[in-house]
């Protein structure tokens, strides 16, 4: 039996021309994101789509591909942001070093939460992840000397640096967008690599039939823990991006409402599709943006739309679109 985490790429049939291009889901996704600021009504919205897109993409690995419905992804989103901010503001670490440190620490947190939560199945898993993420929220609330408590984390600045002759300046919105997009591209490449690996096939096997996957000799518990950590790592990178973007970390980011928002985004866009999370994040944020102009009760409208999606469009916008176009197998 081959080890599921051997990292060996699955052999793909060679294709050419348009077919080849459609296979390049990472390149296509990056191409769309590169022009996003000009497609959306505001630059701020585009940055948020980028950030939440990465968070939701990491979550999609867990929910969409492995079939584990977690209600605690905010813990890793928040951890990424807090660790980045604390490393920069408290310990004077340069921001480009703070990001990998934050992702590493967040992955450790994901390992701790994963050890407890992946012992449970089904609905239990949803409840346990929600409760453990609330634990992280309350810890951040109480440890106010580190986290700023209720006021959130303030007082760190992202320095301007020069990288291979290129200026990286977070005060310039366009410059900032493309720096953050580089992080998003890295995350997408990583996620695509996981999905193409034998391990990616194992997690989908667990989703389809856990008992059969176990009978085939795969270590289901270990695979779940690993995918929980990978998912946490990718979502935490989104948190790092948020910290760099805002130069503050609001406490709300750790709240269970944020976990719920991530779930909503993945469902609106389409779980189990590569670009779905970005579509979902964009849909949610645009809805919020548009509706809050009309009424402060935008949650009512978003909640209703979400309920209608669960009832009538469970595959989400992008998933349904792919099904209609019958390119589901190519998964662009």
């Amino acid at each position, binding site marked *: 039996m081959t080890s599921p985490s051997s990292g060996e790429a699955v052999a793909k049939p060679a294709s050419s021309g348009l077919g080849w291009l459609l296979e390049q889901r990472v390149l296509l996704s990056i191409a769309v994101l590169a022009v996003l600021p000009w497609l959306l009504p505001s630059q701020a919205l585009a940055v948020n789509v980028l950030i939440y897109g990465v968070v939701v993409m990491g979550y999609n690995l867990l929910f969409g591909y492995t079939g584990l419905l977690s209600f605690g992804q905010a813990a890793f989103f928040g951890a990424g942001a807090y660790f980045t901010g604390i490393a920069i503001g408290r310990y004077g670490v340069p921001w480009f070093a703070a990001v990998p440190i934050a992702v590493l620490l967040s992955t450790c947190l994901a390992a701790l939460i994963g050890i407890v939560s992946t012992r449970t199945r089904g609905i*239990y898993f949803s409840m346990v992840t929600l409760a453990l993420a609330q*634990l992280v929220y309350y810890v951040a609330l109480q440890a106010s000397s580190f986290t700023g408590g209720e006021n959130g984390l303030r007082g760190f600045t992202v320095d301007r640096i020069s990288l291979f002759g290129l200026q990286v300046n977070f005060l310039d919105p366009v410059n900032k967008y493309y720096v953050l997009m580089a992080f998003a591209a890295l995350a997408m490449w990583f996620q695509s690599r996981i999905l193409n690996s034998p391990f990616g096939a194992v997690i989908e096997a667990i989703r389809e039939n856990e008992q059969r996957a176990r009978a085939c000799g795969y270590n289901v518990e270990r695979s779940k823990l690993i995918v929980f950590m990978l998912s946490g790592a990718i979502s935490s990178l989104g948190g790092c991006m948020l910290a760099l973007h805002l130069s503050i970390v609001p406490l709300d980011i750790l709240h269970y409402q944020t976990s*719920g928002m991530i779930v909503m985004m993945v469902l609106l866009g389409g779980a189990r599709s590569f670009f779905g999370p970005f579509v979902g994040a964009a849909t949610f944020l645009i809805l919020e943006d548009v509706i809050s102009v009309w009424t402060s009760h935008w949650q*009512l409208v978003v*909640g209703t739309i979400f*309920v209608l999606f*669960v009832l009538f469009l469970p595959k989400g916008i992008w998933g349904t679109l792919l099904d209609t176009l019958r390119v589901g197998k190519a998964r662009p």
Partner: protein
Amino acid sequence: MDLSLIIMQLLSGIALGAVLVITALGLTIVFGMLGVVNFAHGALFMIGAYAGLYLASLTGSFWWGLLLAPILIGAFGMLIELVLIRRLYGRSIDDPLLLTFGLSYILVEGVRIVFGSDGIPFPTPPQLIGVLDLGVGFFPRYRLFVIGLVAVVLVVLWLALEKTRIGLIVRAGARDPTIMQVLGIDIGRVWLAIFGLGVGLAALGGVLAGPMRSVNPEMGSLVLAEAFVVTVIGGLGSIVGAVVAGLMVGISISLVALFAPEMATIVMFALMAVVLLIRPQGLFGVRGRTA
């Protein structure tokens, strides 16, 4: 540390736990029967508190609020089952969970529109204001009443489940719905009633908690997490488990608050993590279904 202080804090914990027991019971009964975890449970708890407050001010008496709010909200719960959740039986187990989560958004925002976003004080009924001398110390009358009422509700529920024909149908339906249908029982009606009962219990918890906590649209999200912790510790679907775990959580929160107040909200989650590491199915849970 004064012993009487610890005893008083223990009683406070039992009162706190009693509300948790009632709320978690609603969650666990619905899961045991329908296999559905209601993520709108916290929101319905909050709506119960608002309904109790509204009905009490309308009729001028807390007691009408206490009686009518669970019945009305329970009926509303039956409507939810009939219109929304019924469509999802036979689909993925995640779907009812996601749907009720979306529903909680709608309910919370609906309450904000009707009653405003700010918290509202819930007056303690005049008959229960003040404290009672228990010999070792003074204890709020209202909290004693909550403990007593919850005990009565638990006994009534237990008798109804164990000693009546309807209870027999409910217990058999939880074990094997298909056989019940073969025997000519309309299982859909049983599920409808149980969902209504579960939601009614959440509303009862909300009304009872009203005078002890402040009533605001966000109160449900903490309650949901608390109810989850209690059901996970006790074992999902286990009624005895919900009672034992609810009291355990209430007492540990109160006692920890005495020694280390900043740890009070954290302790129940730590308790849950320990239980999960030792017994993933919960103290009284059956292995296989959830762990």
